[in-house]
């Protein structure tokens, strides 16, 4: 049976099926915006519905949830400094400063356009390059993964702000946090001191919520006590102009391709892609010092990249039956439940479903654009709520979101502790973003190093024999050298001014 993309569109645009796509996208945006709930939770919540619809409709709905959730994370990141999903942590770096300057609507508008573009570009890559991208993903073994993580860790330097040393300390602090718990290779508890809760380690989302959101509440409390008045939000001109959009496309397009490439590699995900895109955009920017203070490119790049991972993550799922990230892992489970087995035969046995998925992904991103444009005047109104009402409600949401992750008050405690640590870091000039990078990348790097050595019988030299790995080491060295030179120049300038 043959099928074309036109058949896919005809299927999805049928009102009986389109309603499910809409539910998926809208539900995904809401789930993504709520801290503590991620796309994987949203997909699990939709699982009961998949039994009542045909498999193609079910897949379209799940894809809508996937795309919507990744976009939704940026809304809370921009408005209340709380990334709804880990992949929105990089968006916060410039999105929240824009909101503080009264440009929350503009930031959300830029995030909407960038997310849509990233999703559409990655879907086209999925449609036309799926076999080639799958072959690329297959070349990644533990050695290549470890080298990729080494490169990803150099991004720490880019999000270090004014002090490279303090940024590196934050990043290493993140690595230390990630060490607490069970060693992935041997199953031995580390730094748990026989405390059962510490054997589980620290979950990423409570750490994220604490470092960014709860710490900000401490800051707001301090500012309120000092009588600092909040900036009034601009609701009028909320969408960026055409010239700005065209200018931002110079950032959006490469970030989308970067996100797609990262998404194709199983086990990576939107968080890594968004930070890498932020790093590269800043590196090639004419005004790198403006990043972190409300630069629109600092919102566009990570959003294009994290939504770019959606199409990329579907490549290994559909072509190899291997999930690209946590959300697609849950989707794989959903597919198995409805009797569909992804893999090389999917394209030949169920071409109609494959085309429906392609059409569904494209239309999901169009829906994100439409819903985003309609609601971009509504979301910033949240920031017009008086601070004495808004921030307590955010605090409650942070605690309950943390609790919801594992149904344990331990996660609430973690969020609070890291909130205090994050507040201390803000007061002493240590950036928080590198901590998140360390927490995400550290376990993956250690795990892949262990696997690389086991599969190569303990030969450390094999880490340097893969061309792909050597490429990543080379750009890591270049990245670190560039950061050191930039830091040295900045310190000389500061000494000269003094």
């Amino acid at each position, binding site marked *: 049976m043959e099928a074309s993309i036109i058949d896919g569109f005809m299927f999805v645009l049928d009102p009986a099926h389109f309603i499910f796509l809409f539910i998926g996208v809208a539900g995904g945006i809401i789930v993504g915006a709520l801290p503590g709930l991620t796309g994987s939770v949203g997909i699990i919540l939709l699982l009961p519905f998949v039994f009542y619809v045909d498999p193609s409709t079910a897949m379209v709905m799940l894809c809508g949830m996937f795309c919507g959730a990744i976009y939704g994370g940026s809304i809370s990141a921009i408005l209340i400094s709380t990334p709804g999903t880990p992949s929105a942590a990089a968006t916060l770096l410039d999105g929240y400063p824009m909101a503080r300057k009264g440009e929350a609507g503009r930031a959300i508008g830029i995030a909407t356009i960038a997310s849509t573009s990233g999703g559409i570009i990655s879907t086209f890559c999925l449609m036309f390059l799926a076999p080639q991208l799958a072959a690329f993903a297959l070349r990644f073994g533990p050695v290549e993964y470890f080298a990729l993580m080494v490169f990803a860790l150099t991004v720490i330097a880019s999000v270090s702000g004014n002090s490279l040393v303090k940024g590196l*300390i934050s990043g290493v602090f993140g*690595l*230390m946090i990630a060490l607490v718990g069970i060693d992935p290779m041997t199953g031995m508890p580390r730094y748990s001191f026989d405390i059962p809760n510490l054997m589980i380690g620290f979950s990423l989302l409570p750490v994220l919520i604490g470092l960014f959101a709860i710490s900000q509440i401490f800051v707001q409390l301090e500012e309120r006590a000092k009588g600092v008045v909040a900036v009034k939000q601009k609701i009028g001109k909320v969408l960026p102009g055409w010239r700005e959009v065209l200018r931002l496309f110079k950032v959006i397009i490469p970030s989308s391709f970067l996100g797609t490439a990262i998404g194709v590699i199983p086990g990576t995900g939107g968080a890594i892609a968004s930070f890498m895109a932020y790093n590269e955009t800043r590196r090639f920017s004419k005004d790198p010092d403006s990043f972190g203070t409300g630069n629109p490119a600092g919102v566009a790049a990570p959003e294009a990249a994290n939504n770019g991972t959606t199409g990329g993550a579907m490549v290994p799922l559909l072509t190899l039956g291997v999930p690209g990230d946590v959300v697609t892992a849950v989707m794989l489970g959903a597919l198995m439940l409805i009797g569909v087995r992804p893999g090389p035969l999917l394209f030949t046995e169920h071409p109609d479903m494959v085309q429906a998925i392609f059409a569904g992904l494209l239309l999901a991103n169009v829906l994100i654009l439409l819903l985003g444009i309609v609601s971009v005047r509504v979301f910033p109104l949240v920031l017009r709520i008086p601070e004495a009402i808004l921030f*307590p*409600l955010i605090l409650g949401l942070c605690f309950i979101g943390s609790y919801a992750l594992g149904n344990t008050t331990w996660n609430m405690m973690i969020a609070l502790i890291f909130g205090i640590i994050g507040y201390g870091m803000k007061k002493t000039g240590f950036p928080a973003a590198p901590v998140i990078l360390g927490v995400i990348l550290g376990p993956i790097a250690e795990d892949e190093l262990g696997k690389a050595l086991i599969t190569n019988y303990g030969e450390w030299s094999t880490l340097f024999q893969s061309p792909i790995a050597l490429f990543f080491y080379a750009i890591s060295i270049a990245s670190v050298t560039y950061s050191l030179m930039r830091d040295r120049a900045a310190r000389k300038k500061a000494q000269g001014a003094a």
Partner: protein
Amino acid sequence: MLNKDAVIGVVLMSVSAVFFGVTWTFPIQGQYVSPAVFPRFVSACMLILAGILVARNVKVPSRTETEERGSDNTGVAGKVRSFVLGNSLFFLFAIIAFAYTRVIDYVGFIPSTLFLLAATVFLFKERRWHVIALVSVLGTSVYYYVFRIIFKVPLPRFDLF
């Protein structure tokens, strides 16, 4: 003389030394890479970076600074008292939030969240009691409806006796 960053550096050096030292209690196991390798590498990195932070922030005080410090009669206890009083709002808020995370498992979600929201709104200088009550009740209700009813999250219940 040590400034704030140097003190932080010294603390971090101590923490990383402890982290490093604890790795010697890890049993030697695992094929090719023991569980201690990565922690030792990370601890060593932190030790070096913290050392750089200290080195960049330790400076020889000038005669003027030494004279000014000599005239400052505040001891350590006085400085601690001043720090606590100066940050009393932070400490109060932290205590309330900590109490919430401990008490919620026994008192239940609804009463503890009502208290948390009311206390936080009060700390944010809202003094109108009807606003405090409205925010607490509405906020708690919305959270309960969204997380318990819609997302089926099993929120803590009263469990004192």
